[in-house]
């Protein structure tokens, strides 16, 4: 064990390690300043209360330090040291780095007024290093930059020309901010931050078909410049503030935008874990998006670096205690009322029909047993999933055929045909089925050969919903057969689960030539397999003639009413969460372990800032409203600071703080704290509206300066944190794809609506997403409308760093890899777009000029024109289009 800077004094050599271990493993939390759990271990006197027993117990049990305890060797050493009298002199000094307290920069109030200007703050910092802003960017560069920035799309050549000819920059900015493309671009940024995905994630990962309604809500909110404070309130409690107003209610899609485990788990610990994971996701999303706090780090123990207690985590979790994943009806009050008005009479009819059926059944009761006996006496037993048998007169057969007019929901694990000698002549015969269910990834999963393999563990299945399936056995030789048997669950592995769904109707036939068939057995005369159908037979038998007529009539009425109810237009539903007033309390989990429950926790705000705490039994919706109000209070310094930094980040490619969702100790301190405060103040002054702040930023000289390199400046500030030039940026994945569609002239600008898919989605218990070879025109919409299934790599998008929506992603990384090159060169999408782009070029009097204008917003240089022309002449305009898509200039913005 290494010695650390620490006064060992006269400790004995053998058990000297105790204080060292404490210093290394415990002191970061249990020091005089942080004093987590009220305990300091700086001196023996501080530690006296725990040395007598608690320390040994918690170390031995592996409870401390959190997350698995000490390594075994150190545990033993602590125990030995304590037994030997815990000799300890001097004071332990914190060798690990310190942590943030309540005086941390991001927790301080926002200034009361905004003094200064963006350019003044930037220039002041530059001047400190002897740097200056670069010259203004030329107009061609500027319009390309600001158009991609605000809309994610390229400017058209006509727009470029008009602006270069002297158009007003302010008007350009206003036009872009008013464009619906603005919300598509900036809404997409926000969807990253709040981990919006359209599938459940985890093992099953099924699609949420109505999640897109929330995506549209976000895009709409940005386009309408909904105040950010309102966006937060709607996200947390739109159902409360906008009850009956679908456009507002849908906002709660935020709460359930994250992953959710849908696997039914029977084990108690794991059931609890699934629920804990749900609210962990909500806590993490809320705290990281709105507050820039990593509250989730305090799930198992107090935060190691920030003033966030473990209880803070569970107080936030308690805010979401009544929130559950799922769809709910989201409709206007009028629509709900109209639906109810239409449904009520039908429901009355249903109730009446059910009542008369029940009455007739009651009346039949006295004779029911006798009736059942009579029915059973004259009918054959029902088919049985464990095995059904038909015996018939021996007959010569070369072919045997089993027809299942209603398909076979449960499938068949074996089909046997016996000859007179008692031999199964079907065994090993290559069975033919007219239809077989195909499981993706394995066409053999339900193969007909399972019918005759002599084993009962796996089944042949008909495709779901298929009627009229035939199974044909071409026997190896002519046989005299007199018996057939088949089953769905011969091994009784499913304990009768298939009793109701084993094929109930069948016809067994034989043939010598495979053309002419003789029926040898049918299901006629068998009792139905389904319990309710059996019961109906008994009741009908027990009733007299008039009773039977009434019963049939009531059945018909019930069916008619049910059909009428089904025909009513359904109320719209959306994946925006369900709220249950019966709130299961949220307990503190010791060490984050769901089986180690501490006290139930009240809903409350993080204790680092003044805030709220509700009673333990506070109504569910009050909790979310309280949090929403607290987040959007003008006194909360984090909410506007974090958002102002996000805007800056997306405009410049880096934030004033480089960690947009972490304003704690581990996050990056802002390069220009006064500027950040200024922007936060402005956001408040603009009434939490974003568009005026965008406008102020993009009108600044800082934004409008050129992006040219400057070796002298780079030597002083290589990362360009001080913004001595505008930092060039690679387009985000979505913008690369949208740019191709736009330049090819095929971009469908329809706003909103259901998502399109860039994969083939299949479900066989779990979902599987297969890549597709070709994207059809239905995908020629902006990438923000592409369905975002979790953990699924989407061609073109993922390779260009589009993040997985499993976790919130406040930043996009920029990587460069050969796979990006291969995808952009060779994917069928590139080829399709190149053809469309080529047609567009060819339609012009100057195809090459038009190509450059569309792709780069500039005319070709002479040598470029020559080279491009040569390629087009020799290999066609699609080759030129493919080349232009693959250039750096196409995907970099300066």
């Amino acid at each position, binding site marked *: 064990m290494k010695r650390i800077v620490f006064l060992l004094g006269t400790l004995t050599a053998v058990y000297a390690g105790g204080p060292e271990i404490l210093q290394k493993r415990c002191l970061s939390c249990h020091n005089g300043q942080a004093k987590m759990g009220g305990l300091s271990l700086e001196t023996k006197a501080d530690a006296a209360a725990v040395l007598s027993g608690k320390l040994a117990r918690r170390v031995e049990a592996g409870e401390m330090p959190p997350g698995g305890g000490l390594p075994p060797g150190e545990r033993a050493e602590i125990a030995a040291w304590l037994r030997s009298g815990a000799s300890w002199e001097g004071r332990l000094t914190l060798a690990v780095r310190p942590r943030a307290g309540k005086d941390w920069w991001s927790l301080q109030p926002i200034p009361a007024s905004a003094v200064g200007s963006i350019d003044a703050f930037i220039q002041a910092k530059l001047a400190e290093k002897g740097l200056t802003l670069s010259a203004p960017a030329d107009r061609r560069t500027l319009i390309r930059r600001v158009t991609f920035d605000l809309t994610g799309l390229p400017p058209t050549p006509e727009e470029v020309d008009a602006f270069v000819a002297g158009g007003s920059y302010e008007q350009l900015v206003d036009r872009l901010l008013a464009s619906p493309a603005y919300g598509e671009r900036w809404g997409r940024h926000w969807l990253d931050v709040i981990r919006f995905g359209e599938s459940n994630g985890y093992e099953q990962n099924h699609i949420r078909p109505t999640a897109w309604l929330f995506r549209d809500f976000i895009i709409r909110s940005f386009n309408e410049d909904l105040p950010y404070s309102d966006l937060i309130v709607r996200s947390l409690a739109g159902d409360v503030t906008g009850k009956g107003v679908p456009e507002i209610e849908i906002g709660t899609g935020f709460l359930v935008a994250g992953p959710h485990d849908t696997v039914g788990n029977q084990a108690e610990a794991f059931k609890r874990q699934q629920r804990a994971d749900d609210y962990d996701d909500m806590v993490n999303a809320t705290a990281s998006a709105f507050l820039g706090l990593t509250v989730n780090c305090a799930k198992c123990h107090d935060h190691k670096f920030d003033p966030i207690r473990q209880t803070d985590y569970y107080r936030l979790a308690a805010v979401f205690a009544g929130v559950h994943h799922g769809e709910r009806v989201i409709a206007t009050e009028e629509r709900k009322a109209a639906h109810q008005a239409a449904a009520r009479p039908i429901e009355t009819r249903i109730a009446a029909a059910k009542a008369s059926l029940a009455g007739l059944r009651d009346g039949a009761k006295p004779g029911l047993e006798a009736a059942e006996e009579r029915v059973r006496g004259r009918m054959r037993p029902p088919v049985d999933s464990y095995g059904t048998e038909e015996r018939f007169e021996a007959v010569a057969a070369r072919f045997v055929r089993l027809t299942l007019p209603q398909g076979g929901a449960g499938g068949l694990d074996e089909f046997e045909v016996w000859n007179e000698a008692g031999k199964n002549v079907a065994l090993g015969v290559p069975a033919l089925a007219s239809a077989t269910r195909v499981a993706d990834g394995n066409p053999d999963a339900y193969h007909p050969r399972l019918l005759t393999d002599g084993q009962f563990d796996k089944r042949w299945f008909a495709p779901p919903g298929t009627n009229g399936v035939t199974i044909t056995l071409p026997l190896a030789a002519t046989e005299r057969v007199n018996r057939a048997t088949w089953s769905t669950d011969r091994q009784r*592995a*499913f304990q009768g689960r298939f009793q109701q769904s084993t094929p109930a109707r069948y016809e067994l036939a034989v043939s010598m030539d495979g053309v002419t068939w003789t029926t040898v057995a049918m299901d006629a005369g068998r009792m139905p397999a389904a319990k309710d159908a059996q019961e109906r037979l008994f009741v009908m038998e027990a009733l007299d003639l008039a009773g039977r007529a009434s019963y049939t009539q009531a059945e018909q009425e019930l069916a008619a009413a049910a059909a009428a109810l089904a025909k009513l237009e359904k109320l719209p539903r959306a994946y925006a969460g369900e709220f249950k007033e019966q709130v299961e309390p949220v307990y503190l989990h010791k060490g984050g372990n769901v089986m180690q429950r501490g006290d139930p926790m009240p809903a409350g705000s993080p204790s680092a800032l003044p805030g709220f705490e509700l009673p333990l039994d506070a109504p569910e919706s009050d909790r979310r409203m309280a949090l929403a109000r607290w987040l959007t209070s003008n006194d909360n310094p984090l909410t506007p600071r974090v958002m102002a930094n996000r805007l800056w980040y997306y405009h410049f490619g880096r934030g004033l703080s480089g960690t947009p969702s972490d304003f704690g100790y581990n996050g990056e301190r802002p390069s220009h704290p006064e500027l950040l405060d200024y922007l936060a103040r402005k956001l408040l002054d603009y009434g939490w509206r974003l568009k005026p702040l965008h406008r102020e930023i993009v009108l600044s000289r800082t934004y409008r300066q050129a992006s040219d*390199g400057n070796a002298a400046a780079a030597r002083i500030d290589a990362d360009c944190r001080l913004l001595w030039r505008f930092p060039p940026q690679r387009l985000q994945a979505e913008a690369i794809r949208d740019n191709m569609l736009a330049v090819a002239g095929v971009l469908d600008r329809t706003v909103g609506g259901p998502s399109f898919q860039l994969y083939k989605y299949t479900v066989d218990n779990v979902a599987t997403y297969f890549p597709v070879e070709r994207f059809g025109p239905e995908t020629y919409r902006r990438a923000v409308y592409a369905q975002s299934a979790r953990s699924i790599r989407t061609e073109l998008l*993922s390779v260009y760093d589009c993040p997985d929506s499993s976790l919130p992603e406040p930043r996009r990384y920029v*990587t*460069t890899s050969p796979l990006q090159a291969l995808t952009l060169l060779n994917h069928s999408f590139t080829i399709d777009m190149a053809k469309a782009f080529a047609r567009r070029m060819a339609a012009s009097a100057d195809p090459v000029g038009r190509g450059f204008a569309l792709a780069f917003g500039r005319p070709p240089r002479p040598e470029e024109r020559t080279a491009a022309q040569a390629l087009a002449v*020799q*290999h066609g305009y699609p080759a030129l289009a493919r080349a232009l898509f693959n250039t750096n200039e196409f995907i970099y913005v300066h």
Partner: protein
Amino acid sequence: MFTNALPCRRRFIQGLGAVALNGLLQGGAPHFTPKVKRVIQIMCPGGVSHLDTFDYKPELIKRSGQPMPGGEKEVSFQGANGNLMRSPWEFVRRGQSGRWMTEKLPQLGALADGMAFIHSMTSRSNTHGPACVAMNTGFVFEGFPSAGAWTTYALGSMNENLPAYVAIPDVRGIPPSGPANWTAGFLPAEHQGISFNAAEPIRNLDRPEGVPEPADQATRALVQTLNEGHAARHAGDAELRARIASYELAARMQLSAPEVSNLASESQATHALYGTADANPLLAAYARNCLLSRRLVERGVRYVQLYCASRASGVDGLLNWDAHKTLKADYERHFPILDKPTAGLITDLRARGLLDDTLVLWTTEFGRMPTHQEGLLGRDHNPDAYTVWMLGAGVKGGATHGATDDFGRRVVSDVATVHDYWATVLHLLGLNHEKLTWYHNGINRRLTDVHGHVMHGLLR
């Protein structure tokens, strides 16, 4: 080292772009001298029963049919459990060391002396998807980088013409939770495992249909010309140079990847060793993937994740090792598929000297219950105990870490977690698992979360 320095790195630095190509290829150096340069991780999804493979429990055999002592009828993942159920197969002693293994894996058994076993693995999830993801990334939640991504992030590539990290899904389909098992998570996308197998090549590798070779060449030449001019106008932006280099790399990959996938160049004897022509198409397909794995590591691919079986299907135990109801029939399908090709792979690696710096890992996501499920002849999930093994460079053959109780229900000594497991693997790669970090959302993330102890007893 190996942290993403704040602020987030951008490479628009002044000066020459010549560093760009190197920047795409190289990771860092290890923290200390490594024993291992490359890894083949075999993953058998579905939760392989330790009690029917590698964890010999005579007491379970003896008391089969009796209630589990001290065990009220426990409720696990799918529901209630019945009595103790012995393995349908015998256990036999294998190798010089006399290690007990199931009789049904004879060829792997012959290699037993080289294997180091961990019998005390535990999982944080009892569900296939999250548990597979936990095995491969250290976290039950999706979105975290897989071990292969961490490895290539730390060590880079050894062959610029091939992906550094390859995931080889089984012909039966992708594993539970699919690509989350080989994702780069929040690490840069270049560390993503590239998925292909002997049956399906890398996507978008080939020149598109309808684009003749000369047109393709001329197109790329124009891209190069335009890019050069553009880069010259923006001198100092190294990213532009890096992207030019990436097109050169892509061209090389287009030549190298088909070569590595071309198994026809292997000898008849090699094919026979793996079983690539076996009558069982699933065995043959896995054998070809095993052979592909060897060819990949031979050519410097850093990390290969090789699957034997696939996702959960509508029928438990059919496509993978998830034997809830019909253990005997299920594993009699799966055992032969695993046995010969895997043994062939190890034998071949050894014969070619590749085991000197290649580590072979055999993994699954959790174990199974010693009891049968009520009314059924299969076992439910058991996240409290499972067995994995490793073999090859740096591994002490014959070593054992941890043990389960008399029935294999729970671990009784030296509990091991996926974090201990990966701490050990990273150690073999010359990496200190506590120092291999990436800042993400407030935390310097590690493959081993805030846990992990190297299991030194398994190492040479």
